[in-house]
């Protein structure tokens, strides 16, 4: 361990410390406040926690890469919804129905492809126009949502396929299908970011785009790949979630982008780009889900949940900053 990685550990350790604090708090408070007899930290409950973290979690993983890359993607919620529509609706197409259960993998492919294509559109616009990704994806957040509504008006799109539900509800080695998807995605992306040139270039570009351009890195195509990747992941999240629920409202996935970004930032990734970690994002996602679950566990009412979640976000940000302070000698900037 170099001094560098130790420093990173402290820098990124905050989120795990926070998770431990949450666990402790809800376990103790649960003793007094919860009507349920089962303990909060029960294994099944923790496994559920991972499962429930999957929808936002998978998106947040992609968001980590986009943000390390120095961009942001506000359209993921809309991509999520559109991919879900394609997933469910495609299974009702005549030729697909003729395929029986073989329609399922094909429907997945269609949905994932939808995500990739929408991501590519974002990436292409960001690259070619040079407009900031925040603005481009703020626009496509609206535009893609428009496509969602165009598909089925304001009505939900539904198709309940029980084989699909059974698959999605299955548990393998104790972990739910959704958890597997989350963990495998995390592992793959972690390898991508730490071991490959693509990952390292993502850091370089996010850190100093001009430097990357000057060094001859093809920044534009690189952007497209990453936007396709997050499009893919948003669609994957939809595939995982809607396989189990079978119906999508045109408003589904709204605000997901903001929760995903929150999880990423809680994990310590810099909004400005160039710095961040996939594993810490996983921490951020779990921290948020834990907070929701824990507040439900101790019976907090709606207004308290809203108030507490909001203030905790801010508090974590504050703590993180205190932890990373350089000390008194610091430049007062």
């Amino acid at each position, binding site marked *: 361990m170099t001094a560098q990685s130790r420093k990173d550990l402290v820098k990124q350790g905050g989120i795990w410390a926070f998770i431990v604090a949450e666990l402790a708090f809800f376990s103790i408070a649960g003793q007094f406040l919860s009507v349920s007899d089962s303990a909060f930290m029960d294994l099944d409950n923790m496994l559920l926690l991972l499962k429930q973290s999957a929808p936002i979690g998978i998106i947040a993983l992609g968001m980590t890469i986009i943000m390390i890359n120095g961009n942001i993607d506000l359209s993921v919620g809309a991509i999520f919804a559109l991919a879900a529509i394609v997933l469910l609706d495609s299974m009702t197409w005549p030729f697909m129905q003729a395929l029986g259960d073989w329609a399922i993998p094909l429907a997945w492919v269609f949905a994932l492809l939808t995500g990739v294509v929408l991501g590519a559109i974002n990436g292409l616009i960001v690259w070619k126009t040079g407009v900031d990704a925040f603005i481009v994806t703020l626009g496509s957040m609206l535009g893609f949502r428009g496509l969602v509504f165009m598909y089925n008006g304001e009505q939900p799109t539904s198709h309940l396929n029980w084989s699909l539900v059974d698959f999605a509800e299955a548990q393998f080695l104790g972990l739910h299908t959704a958890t597997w998807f989350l963990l495998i995605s995390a592992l793959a992306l972690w390898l991508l970011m730490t071991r490959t040139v693509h990952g390292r270039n993502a850091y370089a570009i996010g850190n100093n785009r001009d430097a990357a351009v000057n060094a001859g890195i093809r920044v534009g195509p690189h952007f497209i790949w990453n936007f396709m990747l997050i499009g893919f992941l948003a669609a994957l999240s939809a595939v995982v979630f809607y396989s189990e629920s079978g*119906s999508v409202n045109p408003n589904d996935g709204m605000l997901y982008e903001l929760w995903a970004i929150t999880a990423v930032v809680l994990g310590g990734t810099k909004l400005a780009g160039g710095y961040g970690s996939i594993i810490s994002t996983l921490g951020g996602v779990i921290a948020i889900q834990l907070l929701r679950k824990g507040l439900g566990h101790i019976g907090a009412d709606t207004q308290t949940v809203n108030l507490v979640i909001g203030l905790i976000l801010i508090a974590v940000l504050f703590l993180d900053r205190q932890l990373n302070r350089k000390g008194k000698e610091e430049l007062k900037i």
Partner: protein
Amino acid sequence: QTMTIGITQNNVGVDSYQTTYERAFIAAAEANPNVEAVVLDAGGDVARQIAQMEDLIQQEVDAIIIWPTNGEAVIPAVRKAHDADIPVIVTNSNIAEQGFDFVASFSGPDNITQGARSAEIMCDKFVDMGIQDEARVVQISGQPGYTTAIERQEGFEDRLPEVCPNVTLVETQPGDWNREKSQQVMEAFLVKYDDIDGVYAGDDNMGVGALNAAKAAGREGIIFVGATNFAVGYDAMAAGDYWGSIYQSPVDDAEAALQTAIDTLNGEELPFLNYFDTPKITQDNMEEFTKPVF
């Protein structure tokens, strides 16, 4: 013995119906020494509601009451509870038929009848005014995908031609149970159509939003009929601006749901659909009703 009953509500705080429901539910549960309640709110998010179902199953509550955010999306989660031998009671807005096998019973208003009654209220008024042969109506429906909304629309659209065959329903747009949104929808209708005689809104919040839009645009003489009589709707009726609605109490709704759950756990025979009554209310008969508390 005490029974633990979990409830996952749709979206508390989105309107006062849902908030009042929550209060009433908690009050009813507290009043009953045999009941412990776990009260959760999905905040309108399907994913969160499914997670809450899983949490309740995991906590091994005795029964689960669900106010679905999406009548179809929650079916697998309901099945999960069913498989875990936890009876599920659907409240307020039913889930889709495919899920009926996994549900112990439904408790709530009969929304198809409500829609039909609203059509009757409106038609009667048109007849009074003598415009039953030329009147043009717009509809502002509730949250898309929400069974209550779908059923009220269905009831209204089926019944209206039966009672007033010559009235035309010009356009329907969702107002998402939201006063602001439906005010905008109505503003748009007013821009588009010079001649509007009646507005049917899926609830009074939306109806009043539409009324505000009409007032602001100076369009008079429009007949507003809603559903779920809110306090604002009642006041607007008293002021003579708003014609009629359906009287539906969230307190009845909540108490009925809890009672249905208790009855189910006590092994009583229950019909699958437990409707509580929701009568017509118009400017003509409103003295018979107390002003809604929400």
